[in-house]
């Protein structure tokens, strides 16, 4: 338990060390999540367009 406390304390620099790592984690995750959501939206849109086209062709 004390060991864990010491680990998070980082010799008094805990705030700086953990904030650095926290910011890095958030930025690296966002750089993955954001393009993936954009990609999904793009594919959904393409699917929708193709469906609408398909319906149009069937009617005519």
């Amino acid at each position, binding site marked *: 338990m004390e060991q864990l406390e010491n680990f998070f304390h980082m010799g008094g620099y805990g705030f*700086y060390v953990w904030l650095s790592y926290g910011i*890095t984690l958030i930025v690296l995750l966002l750089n993955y999540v954001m393009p993936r959501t954009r990609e999904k939206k793009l594919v959904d849109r393409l699917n929708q367009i193709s469906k609408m086209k398909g319906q149009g062709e069937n009617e005519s």
Partner: protein
Amino acid sequence: MWKWITKYASPMHFYLLANRLTPWFGWSAAVLFAVGLYGAFFYAPADYQQGESFRIIYIHVPSAWMSMFVYMVMAGAGAAGLIWKTKVSDAVARSCAPLGASFTFLALATGSLWGKPMWGTWWVWDARLTSELILLFLYLGYIALQSAIDDRRTAARAGAILALVGVVNIPIIHYSVIWWNTLHQGPTISKLDSPSIHIDMLIPLLVMALAFNLYFAAMVLIRARMEIVEQEKNSKWVQELIVDKVSV
């Protein structure tokens, strides 16, 4: 070789290749991040002067290296786009910008969080910090330019020219700590003959640097393949591969 290059310069083949490579880069990055972080916190000893605060080095230095490396990739891809007018290289250049901006931001933010306890200040206008800030503005300028110009070709060309002009900043960042002696410490790693860092501290740093590189490779491919689908959305192969999901 040339045949291979021209093959993967075609958007469809690049898309397929990117799809196949992304998980390899992504998972090997994840593994190396785990190994590197273990090394950074449990293997590397505390610094005799800076204590535990020096552990910020394991994200600060790789981010700073990546901020410059990604810029060179962006400028290189931009130049290739200018010369050979390949759509793939434009997509790669475009995809580099947000990643490069992120790495630059991380280098500045973690540097600031390291500077506060060590130097006693969040920020100083010294050459290294200022030139790195200029790099951030170059990336942001590139992104703004891309979103300001609707025509993709024109945007790619304008961006490539901006990126190439900005290359002049890269050696300035690299040599700034040698040319101007200020608060930022001098190079410790790049003196390859005798790096002034202990080997137990160096190994996790190199692992983290490799992890950052692989992470970048995976993320730039994810972005580039999306750019390509967007560019080619009316073509037959996008329809077949992505909408109808025909396997090749």
